């Protein structure tokens, strides 16, 4: 996105050399622990313990502690699953697609966004397993020859989810780790503690930075980017099939796959902004994650947000156009039924407020942009709530209608996974370089060696 119109500032602040870049990024890992980090990690860890408590109760008493019941058989567990896995998509988009399109601005945010992907997928993956009722039998989800003579239903998208999410987690982890290797070697060489040298040394897998190493590295990285690219689209498409292949009005819509993918990227960029804005401030990384990055991310959010709004519009139009009474009831129930406040909040937070991003002044106003990103985080969660709960609670038979509300355990588990996510993130920031050191160095004027891949 070498935007033709305006000069949005550099993608790396002025006055940096190879050495200052390395120092600045490695220092976050190699220096003493800061108080602010301890505080943040402490809070996150407390939230994580809430998760552990909720799960402990769940294992003892079963999923009856949640708010789900017929007709709403899917509640917080699936809402949160979709929310988390959507958030992960920005990382894959940044790391894979922007690499293939030679968008060098991705460099300072890709490492961080990929880590976010991994942690978000971890949080997401927990929910379907917890929802199993007997989570210790989770391996029954996999097709393996067994004495029971039972196979999973290959026509079920829930089965495809198992493949999609596990592939996603594997490839993302590989991609992230391969990208880390040269930096792990830097940490190995700079670490002053013996333990650090040994651990980083093992993880660096003998990286010495020879031309042959770099050559192989570039090839491997490019191939992994190629493998990751379809995952940006496929994972959330399969997630959307969880709903769309059924015939429930509000779920069964052909636009679901692309509209879910756009929503995932939308939510993901909102989360990247939510996390980078405080981080770059706290660690003084404004020279690496510049206003230009922030501006680009805001633009991607605006574009994907418009696609999401298009999806809402098409659902409403086609519900009327189809002449199908169930479809039109679904829309009417969303707009005027018992959950109408949530739908209004969804439109406000996910469609109306993000329109502020049209303005350059909003995109470069950090507090305001942070507020918009938070609004989208909330809006995308509400979107899944509306899709899942509001479509289910009034089905074809009025006699079986009901209402749904999450219990304290539902909320506890959700807050708990936020704790898990943040805990992992704080550990990552402290233990690994959150910005790719060697890729940042290639952006410096000194490094006129242009990347030539494809």
């Amino acid at each position: 996105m070498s935007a033709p119109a305006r000069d949005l500032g550099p993608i790396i602040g002025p006055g940096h050399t190879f050495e200052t870049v390395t120092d600045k990024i490695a220092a976050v890992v190699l220096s003493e622990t800061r108080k602010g980090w301890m505080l943040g990690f402490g809070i996150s860890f407390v939230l994580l313990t809430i998760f552990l408590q909720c799960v402990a109760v769940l294992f003892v008493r079963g999923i009856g502690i949640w708010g789900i019941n017929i007709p709403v058989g899917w509640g917080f567990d699936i809402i949160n699953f979709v929310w988390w896995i959507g958030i992960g998509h920005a990382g894959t988009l940044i790391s894979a697609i922007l690499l293939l399109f030679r968008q060098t601005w991705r460099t300072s945010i890709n490492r961080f966004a990929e880590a976010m992907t991994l942690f978000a997928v971890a949080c997401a993956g927990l929910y379907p397993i917890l929802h199993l009722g007997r989570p210790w039998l989770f391996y029954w989800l996999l097709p393996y020859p067994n004495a029971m003579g039972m196979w999973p239903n290959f026509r079920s998208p829930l089965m495809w989810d198992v493949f999609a999410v596990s592939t996603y987690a594997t490839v993302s982890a590989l991609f992230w780790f391969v990208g880390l290797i040269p930096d792990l070697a830097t940490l190995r060489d700079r670490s002053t503690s013996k333990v650090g040298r040994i651990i980083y040394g093992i993880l660096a897998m003998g990286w010495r930075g020879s031309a042959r190493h770099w050559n192989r590295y570039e090839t491997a990285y490019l191939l992994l980017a190629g493998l990751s690219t379809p995952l940006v689209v496929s994972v959330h498409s399969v997630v959307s099939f969880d709903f769309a292949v059924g015939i429930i009005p509000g779920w069964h819509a052909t636009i679901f796959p692309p509209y879910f993918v756009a929503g995932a990227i939308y939510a993901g960029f909102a989360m990247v902004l939510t996390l980078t804005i405080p981080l770059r401030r706290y660690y003084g990384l404004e020279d690496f994650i510049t206003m230009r990055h922030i501006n680009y991310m805001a633009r991607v959010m605006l574009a994907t947000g418009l696609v999401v709004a298009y999806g809402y519009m098409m659902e409403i139009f086609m519900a009327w156009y189809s002449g199908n009474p169930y479809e039109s009831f679904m829309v009417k129930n969303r707009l005027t039924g018992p959950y109408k406040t949530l739908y209004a909040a969804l439109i406000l937070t996910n469609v109306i407020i993000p329109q502020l991003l049209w303005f350059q002044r909003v995109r470069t106003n950090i507090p305001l942009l942070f507020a918009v990103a938070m609004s989208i985080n909330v809006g995308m969660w509400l979107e899944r709530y509306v899709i899942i709960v509001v479509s289910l609670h009034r089905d074809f038979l009025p006699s079986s209608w009901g209402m749904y509300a999450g219990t304290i355990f539902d909320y506890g588990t959700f807050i708990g996974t936020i704790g898990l996510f943040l805990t992992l993130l704080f550990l990552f920031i402290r233990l690994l370089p959150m910005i790719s050191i060697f890729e940042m160095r290639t952006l410096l004027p000194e490094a006129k060696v242009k990347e030539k891949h494809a």
Partner: protein
Amino acid sequence: MSSAMDDRSRLMLPADHPLFRVRPLALGAGAIGLAVSLAGALIDTTQFFQSYLFGFLFWFGIAMGSLALLMIYHVTGGAWGSVIRRSLESAVRTIPVLAVLFIPVVVGLQSLYEWADAAKVAHDPLLQHKSVYLNVPFFIGRAVLYFVVWTLLAVFLSRWSEAQENGEPRAIGWLENLSRGGLVALGLTFTFAAVDWAMSLEPHWYSTLYGVLVMGGCLLSAMAFMIQVTALLTKNGPLSGVVQPMQFHDLGKLMFAFVMLWAYFSLSQLLIIWSGNLPEETPWYLKRMSGGWEYLGLCLILFHFALPFVILLSRDIKRNARLIATVALFILCVRVLEVYWLITPAFSPHHARVHWLDVTAWLGVGGVWLWAFTGGLRGRALIVWNDPSLPAAGGHA
């Protein structure tokens, strides 16, 4: 300054370039095609309108895809767009011609669309429900609105592009801002145009993905067409030496992306409708999966997706102007089949057929359109003279 003028004129298309020499030929083919089709209308009026709609929608799709690509380029920038920008602008400038070419569709509303036939609507509650939207005056009003929006976009995209060429520094900002709003306007108008002109051929059927699916196909048509034109301009034209393998590589990647995008949309729609298996949704596919149409569908899977997918994986092919142009031409041919598969089974369900009018109408619209398109390339430097991403177009690695 004088050397700058020299450079600029060197980037213009010489009057004896093959693209110009085929102009009279295109116009001739168009005129003959349309004349023969009109003669055919005397024999079989209904068939004429059906064939004409198919021919129109194919060429219209290239112009619409080009409009989308041009505006995407103005918003995102990138070397890929700098080299095809003039050709995109030429394609966009054909929109007023397409508006004129749309007139026969309006004339043929009653024979094309079930909902325009009062007798059928009288016995069909569903069509009565939809008649608020699907009625002749509103249909025509919407079509006028669409063409006004697209023509306005085309006019200002051209005018400000010329202003940029003449050294107006603010023009780039104007183009960018226009394109932002323009993409939203195009998204909305194109979706409803697709619903009106193609989806409502089968007025009982609906799919929320339809507009997106058709747009995906148009983007592919436009990109394949642009690669073909750029290869011609590079081979023995002013772009030789300017457009490098790198740029073909980029264009090829985009074409590859659009091939996959089309397949992704098509598969999504098919899978969701197949698994839902609802009587109001499946007929669209049932009509297209029997009586010979299924072979055309199979062709699309193989030649619209599988074969281009495998071929375009190759980096060497994407970087070779001649080879990538061949692939693009092949894709354009398959695009014709896809539009045919989308449209014609609505008229001839469960029974595959090709009428000679399908060929002449397609040729007729196409000839006129190509004549208009090549006309747009006259008298302009084929690379924007003061495009800020031009150094990138020259030597970006």
